[in-house]
């Protein structure tokens, strides 16, 4: 098992691919100082180059197609200790997780990825649709209408897994990792709250507690995670549009920056400005080495 192989976990539009694109530009360009620096340039970087180009040009990074399990491999080194490491993670499509929740089936490749992983990068987005509002919450304070009595069979509307609140789906799948076929022991979990520029909370920890309380409780109280840290990340730095569409509202501002790496914003424990390698350093455990 590669001690620095991480499972990237996140549903659709949770920011996984944008994070990878920004990370690649960050370490490859060496524009700003990072906790982990790029090591030898040896490998197949076609996928990283493809997504990083979109990122550099100020377009939304196209999400991973469902058919793809993109292997990302970056040689890094830790200047503090001189240690070299190979960061490996698989950029799985969000549909993979959604299908797994709905069908209770997953591709064998995913099982292997989980077993090989030494840590988890869990992506959730601050740019999210509120999917857990109850009818009572929505109409709180309004005079209740007389309920229409249901017949003895009740409402037979079938359950739609896709409408299950996202935090419930995430917790359910994280729990599934503890059982066969994964049987995964607790590992470090770095929660990445993407689109952080849209969040109103002052810290990523409070965002998670406020917006995804079930997930926050689970990560803090269950024995699923050995350690948890929560980071807020704006990997593209603002609102962008898809290539081919009218430019996003922040594109000109972001392109005007001399050093594109400075588009990146990150908040959390022990991170420096723009440095996406902070969570990876923590996951690797190298932060504890001299």
């Amino acid at each position, binding site marked *: 098992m590669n001690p620095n192989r991480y499972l990237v976990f996140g549903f659709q539009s949770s920011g996984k691919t944008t994070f990878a694109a920004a990370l690649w530009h960050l370490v490859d360009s060496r524009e700003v100082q990072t906790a982990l620096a790029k090591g030898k340039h040896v490998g197949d970087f076609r996928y990283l180059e493809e997504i990083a180009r979109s990122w550099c040009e100020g377009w939304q990074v196209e999400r991973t197609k469902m058919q793809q399990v993109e292997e990302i491999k970056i040689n890094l080194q830790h200047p503090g200790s001189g240690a070299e490491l190979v960061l490996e993670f698989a950029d799985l499509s969000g549909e993979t997780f959604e299908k797994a929740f709905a069908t*209770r089936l*997953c591709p064998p490749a995913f099982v292997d990825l989980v077993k090989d992983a030494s840590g988890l990068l869990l992506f959730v987005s601050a740019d999210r649709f509120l999917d857990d509002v*109850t*009818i*009572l919450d929505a109409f709180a304070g309004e005079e209740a209408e007389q*309920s229409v009595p249901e017949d003895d069979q*009740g409402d037979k509307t079938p359950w739609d897994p896709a409408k299950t609140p996202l935090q419930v789906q995430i917790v359910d799948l994280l729990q599934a990792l503890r*059982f066969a076929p994964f049987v995964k022991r607790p590992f470090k979990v770095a929660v990445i709250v993407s689109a952080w520029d849209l969040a109103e909370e002052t810290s990523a920890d409070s965002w998670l507690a406020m917006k995804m309380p079930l997930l926050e409780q689970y990560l803090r*109280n269950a024995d699923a995670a050995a350690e948890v840290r929560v980071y807020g990340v704006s990997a593209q730095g603002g609102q962008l549009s898809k290539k081919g569409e009218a430019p996003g509202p922040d594109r000109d501002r972001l392109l005007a920056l001399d050093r594109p790496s400075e588009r990146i914003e990150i908040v959390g424990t022990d991170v420096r400005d723009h440095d996406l390698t902070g969570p990876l350093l923590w996951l690797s455990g190298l932060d504890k080495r001299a």
Partner: protein
Amino acid sequence: MTDQKTLCQNAECQVATTGKCHLGHDPVERCPNYARDDIVPDNADVVAEPTTERVAPVEICSGDVMHLEDLATLARTTPVRVVALVGDQRAGKTTLIASIYAMYCKGPFAGMAFAGSRTLVGFAKRHHLALLNSGRADPTTPRTSRDEPVAFFHLALSGAVGPPVHLVFSDRSGEAYGDARIVTDLIQNLPELLQADRVCFLLDGAKLASKDQRPAYSRQFKQMIHALLDNGALVNVKAVEVLSTKFDLTKRGDAEEQLRYLDAYERTLIAEFNARGLTECYRVCALPKADQSVGFLGLDEAIKRWTAAPPRPELGPESIADAPRQIDRMLAKATTGDAA
């Protein structure tokens, strides 16, 4: 109507018109590019890798409700507290379970934090008709069919100290309990009662509030408790309680009269079953749709009762009646408080 584009991802393939795969796959369904844009049925491949062969998907844990054998498996490795919810059809058993789950979706509740559940999918299925995205204007809970076997819901809750408490709620259709009340031989078909540490009898506040239904229902409710007690179904049970549900309905209409009747009926229950361990009745409102000012009532106290540390076992010697030794007779007086 299926067009060329959705039938095959390969732009050069003419399968839509010729029926033959451009890559020579026969049958065409074996081609990884074929029908890729269609909706994938439940049991189909979840992800097709970019290879020429489809790989069989792997099954993961269901996340749905547990059944008896699942409970036995869990109980072998984890200390569980089983709370059996007993009540007639539409008394509010499933709604109570769904509401407790919904509380933890919003954050820690009743001094406890969510620490996991083997049955999150089961919970989600019971709660989906209370969500705004269900398209309903009026929240409800799916009915539990009498054809369904007893189901168990698991909830691990973590307090300030100590290991998590693993609560397990049983749920089955009210018709099954109604049948067993009338034909007591059927009580043996209620195995959840033998597994239960605590039995909660759900008193349907709506039926009790109705002057039409009240006379028969109040008799039948007591009959249910008698039936289970008299047939030994509660021999392993450590605690028995009554939960009066739908308190929001009790507060509507002639609220004063309804509350008076409820108070009196609860006193009757305690008097009749006090010797059998029933010491208190509680009131809950798990879905305050009739009167939102009532709010979610009694759920936090219920969770606190169900997760409270069990009383420590008495380790001292048991008193002996009519003991021949003077010292034992003195001990017996001291432990029973009998000064006579």
